[in-house]
């Protein structure tokens, strides 16, 4: 099997995530208010950042797809939306298992969790939509349009839900997180990013191959022999 650059990204990702998680689980101090439960931070926050980045990638790919109409961009839309939905799903799952010991319930209507839920449905619908369309050009156009609209909707949804109810942690940035926790967090975040790059690229290659096969010219039939009208002259 030929060497692929994204394998490096994947390996790097696994390595960084492993280091970050090890550090986060065993070395870094427990979170001031949440105790050990707060260690999920090292998994949850990177998943959130990288998930959003993946959707951003999908948005850019969608614009590219509409602009150029090329299969490569379409495959990238497909790959990044799918990986984004997976990460998004993970995020919701992680959020729920954290919420139970912290707030006593699996679900709360805080802005980020709610926006996440909306996003997973919106982008999941795009995956479903792609499955329903046979014609390649229509599939490209419609899924690209849906991706653009879904992404534009993310900040709007977030703002509206935030105004509606606020419960979540303050936005995690290095200033609000103590310095001993910043490093494993950053490491885990980059690790996650590399993993995402690996996943998207691998999925993209599959997509390009499959869409390419679809688009590949079946041979045009041979030119027909001329028709003789017979008895006419």
């Amino acid at each position, binding site marked *: 099997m030929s060497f692929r650059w994204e394998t490096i990204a994947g390996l790097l990702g696994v390595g960084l995530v492993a280091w970050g998680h090890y550090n986060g689980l065993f070395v870094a101090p427990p979170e001031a208010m949440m105790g050990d439960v707060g260690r999920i931070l090292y998994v949850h926050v990177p998943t959130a950042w990288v998930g959003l980045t993946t959707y951003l990638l999908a948005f850019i790919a969608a614009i590219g797809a509409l602009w150029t109409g090329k299969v490569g961009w379409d495959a990238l839309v497909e790959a990044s939306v799918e990986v984004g939905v997976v990460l998004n799903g993970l995020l919701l799952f992680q959020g729920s298992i954290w919420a139970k010991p912290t707030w006593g319930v699996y679900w709360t209507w805080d802005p980020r969790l709610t926006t996440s839920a909306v996003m997973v*449905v919106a982008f999941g619908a795009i995956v*479903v939509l792609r499955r329903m*369309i046979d014609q390649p050009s229509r599939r490209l156009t419609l899924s690209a349009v849906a991706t653009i*609209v*879904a992404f534009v909707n993310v900040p*709007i949804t977030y*703002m509206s839900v935030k*105004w509606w109810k606020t419960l979540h942690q303050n936005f995690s940035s290095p200033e609000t997180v103590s310095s001993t926790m910043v490093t494993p967090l950053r490491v885990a975040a980059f690790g996650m990013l590399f993993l995402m790059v690996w996943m998207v690229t691998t999925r993209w290659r599959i997509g390009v191959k499959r869409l390419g096969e679809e688009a590949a010219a079946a041979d045009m039939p041979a030119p027909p022999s001329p028709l003789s009208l017979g008895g006419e002259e």
Partner: protein
Amino acid sequence: MRQTLAIFRKDLLIEWRTASRTVALMSFAFIVLLILSFAIGAESSALQLHAAAYIWIAVLLSSTLLLDRSFRVEVEAGALHSLLLGPVRPAALFFGKALANFVQLLFLGTITIPLVIVLCDATFQGQVWVMAVALILGTAGLAAPGTLYAAMIARLQGRQLMLPLLLFPLIVPVLVAAVKATSLAMLGDPMNQAEAWLVLLLCFNLIYWCLAGVLFGRVIES
């Protein structure tokens, strides 16, 4: 512009002609309200507290039927091709249809208010103008992306399933803001929060009417 008006008038004319379908839609909204009332229970305070939500749930569910029908009319006997070859500019087609859908949704929303007042014993302790603006901006906010997505799925198999799936996640902001604003209008607004929600609705409308208008051309040609 002329084309937008022509299409706007045409859509409303068709709805006027098929008044039985419009009545069916209104009945649907009414049934939704009834079912919600039964499900929540006859206890008056719960009904009254959430009256705003009921209005918007009824409007939202009815919008699926309305939007789907808006494009079925085009595809049914191939009229869409006649329009495209008119030639009608895609933007004109979008705005004409979206405005027609907006007007119909607004009408639908307006008639649910008296129904809700009766069924839920709702009152207006806040400002009525807030209610009116919320209704206008909320239905407009549903109409724009709704028309875009209805066009997208018009020629798809199994399309009736896809419209809610695609549309509902997008209009969550509209739902949240419209219900809040309506609720404040009905139950009173001591801290004057209504304006913030109306501003959100306005922004959503500005963004989506532009975005959908731009993207519609690509969708309709595909």
